[in-house]
């Protein structure tokens, strides 16, 4: 795209986009410096949704903090607590039972599909295709129904526990997931017909928001946005966690480096996620749902009432929680938005000394200025869409 000509400063117009704007996906505030309709500079202001999650974590016991991370990226609420669980498990050296790990994988991948569907919906809506929005929400609804059935919540789940999951999946879970696996590909065909070859969609996404592989790495961009620039990096493949190494899956890449490339990558990722879910459902092992470790597993309630020792332990583990050994750990997972890392420092007390969350959306937002310079004002909407940010994640 042609860069904006160097014009005297007074000829430029500043426009405030957001924090209330239909396509900044929440409370993102952009200050656009325009020359005509061309963007010469984008200043990005974040923090409107800052809730101080990291500080909250320092004041709560580990298990009390569990419901919080899913409120960071509320569009894929199961991946955040999974990352936290994995971090603490790594720190305390807890082996998660295989069934629990598989269930985590199924739910996390469903979460990824839900998140990508919402991305597709809003991205298409930003560019003006409103019907894809409704179709994508229809499928997302099916996923949320599955989540509701398993976890008892549609957006906030609080299902994963340190060492496993809260309870086993209900009867009929696998059937419902299979039904979704059966339905979904034909539905995806509809989105593809509406968008992939549509000439308007191509005009609006091709060569928009160019982000070269080098720039992407330098800015710390991860996830589909990075893979859309042709860099083969997927945490699930590079550093497998939660049994991901057992699944046969490909990492979709695109060398286009533009919005269209990232669109194709994300669509393919949905298909690959579906493959993982399929394999996990087929091989779902029997067994425990939570690690048999006294530090994290609450004793059975009946036992607690009949046995003094157990009762004391029950009360203690609720009141005092558990204390991981002093030290520090970093664990990252592949969230739908990118690499999600939890860096945990423990001083041996039941509360984290410091919890640093490496949120993918914030870092993915970084190259916004670079990507949108010289583009038209209509393109910035497409570029924000293609970065796939969620403001809860950006602002922490």
């Amino acid at each position, binding site marked *: 795209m042609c860069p904006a000509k160097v014009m005297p400063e007074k000829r430029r117009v500043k426009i405030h986009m957001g924090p209330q704007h239909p396509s900044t996906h929440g409370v993102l505030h952009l200050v656009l410096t325009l020359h005509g309709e061309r963007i010469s500079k984008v200043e990005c202001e974040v923090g409107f949704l800052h809730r101080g999650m990291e500080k909250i974590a320092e004041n709560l016991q580990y298990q009390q903090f569990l419901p919080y991370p899913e409120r960071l990226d509320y569009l894929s609420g199961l991946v955040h607590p999974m990352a936290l669980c994995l971090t603490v498990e790594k720190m305390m050296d807890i082996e998660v039972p295989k069934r629990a790990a598989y269930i985590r994988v199924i739910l996390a991948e469903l979460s990824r599909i839900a998140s990508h569907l919402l991305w597709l919906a809003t991205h298409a809506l930003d*560019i*003006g295709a409103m*019907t894809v929005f409704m179709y994508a929400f229809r499928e997302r609804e099916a996923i949320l129904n599955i989540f509701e059935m398993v976890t008892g919540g549609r957006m906030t789940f609080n299902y994963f526990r340190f060492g496993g999951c809260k309870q086993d999946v209900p009867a009929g879970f696998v059937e419902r997931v299979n039904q979704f696996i059966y339905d979904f590909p034909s539905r995806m065909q509809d989105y593809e017909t509406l968008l992939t070859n*549509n000439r308007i969609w191509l005009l609006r996404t091709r060569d928009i928001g160019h982000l070269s592989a080098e720039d992407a790495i330098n800015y710390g961009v991860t996830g589909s946005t990075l893979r859309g620039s042709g860099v083969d990096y997927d945490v699930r493949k590079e550093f497998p966690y939660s049994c991901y190494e057992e699944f046969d899956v490909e990492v979709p890449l695109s060398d286009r480096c533009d919005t269209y490339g990232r669109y194709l990558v994300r669509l393919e990722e949905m298909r690959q996620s579906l493959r993982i879910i399929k394999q996990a459902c087929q091989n779902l092992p029997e067994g425990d749902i939570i690690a048999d470790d006294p530090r994290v597993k609450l004793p059975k309630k009946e036992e607690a009432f009949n046995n003094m020792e157990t009762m004391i332990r029950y009360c203690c583990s609720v009141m005092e929680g558990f204390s991981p050994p002093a030290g520090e750990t970093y664990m990252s997972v592949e969230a739908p938005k990118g690499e999600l890392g939890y860096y945990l420092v423990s001083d041996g007390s039941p509360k984290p000394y410091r919890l640093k969350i490496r949120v993918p959306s914030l870092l993915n937002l970084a190259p916004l200025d670079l990507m949108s310079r010289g583009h038209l004002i*209509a393109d910035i909407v497409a570029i924000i869409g293609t970065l796939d940010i969620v403001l809860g994640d950006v602002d922490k």
Partner: protein
Amino acid sequence: MPALLLLAIKVILTVTVVLLTVAYCVYAERKVIGHMQQRPGPQFVGWRGLLQSPADVLKLIIKEDIVPTKADKFIHFIAPVLCLVPAVLALAPIPFNKSGSLLIADINIGVLYILAVSELGIFGIILAGWGSNSKYSLMGAMRSAAQMVSYEVALGLSLVGVFMMSGSMSMVEISKAQSGSVWYILPQFLGFFVYCVAAVAETNRTPFDLPEAETELVAGFHVEYSGMKFAFFFLAEYTNMIVVSSIAATCFLGGASGWLLPPLVWYLIKVYAFLFIFFWLRATFPRYRYDQLMEIGWKFLIPLALANVVITALIKAYI
């Protein structure tokens, strides 16, 4: 004097009917798009939501009329009127039936009149953007002006072929000329195509709805309007849709002619079919970008329309 009275009745009748159609056009649009997206659309007010439109109108009337502090009060006030009046004026030479008895004025340059008058609506839009004193509005207005000016050319040129074939610019004559021979959609298919695209752009509808692009300019030129003033823009947009659909029905689809059913019904069927296509396009397509839209207009549609004129002229001259 009776002639004047008759005219007054016709005017009132036409305007009322069209404005009612507009109100139900909104309802129909919401229903059609809703069902295309597998949702029911309006359904709570009245039976199947049929009273939604009166409810909307009522809401818009009683809504607070907000004028931004820094707006130019007079221009801000006059813009919606300037937008709506030309749109309604353009209804004058539209023949709803074959004989033209329901016609308000049979002007011998009917189509030209419509094009000229409806073009005046741009003033309303530009003044709305200017008077609101908001950058978003101004940007929407600028886009709108550029878009409507350039697509007006294509729209006019696409109809030239029809004028050549019918030898007249009067809506009644054009529609009469087709009843003897085939509908002009067949010999003038190129012109029809250009007309359709230009008409969608002219009425600021998806995929050419850049002036009000919800997701980038929020609502474009009418972002600072509320209440009845906003409703005026809305009415103007839908009236314009009806006008361009009527021109298409008259110039390309044989006007009120048809079998079995009375001419008025045929006419309405054709107009509604066009309106349905408007809704259908809106449900399906993404939005073009401003520069792409201009490119299509100037580099593609206008040459195509000119080619159509040349071809029609050649055929007319030699065959």
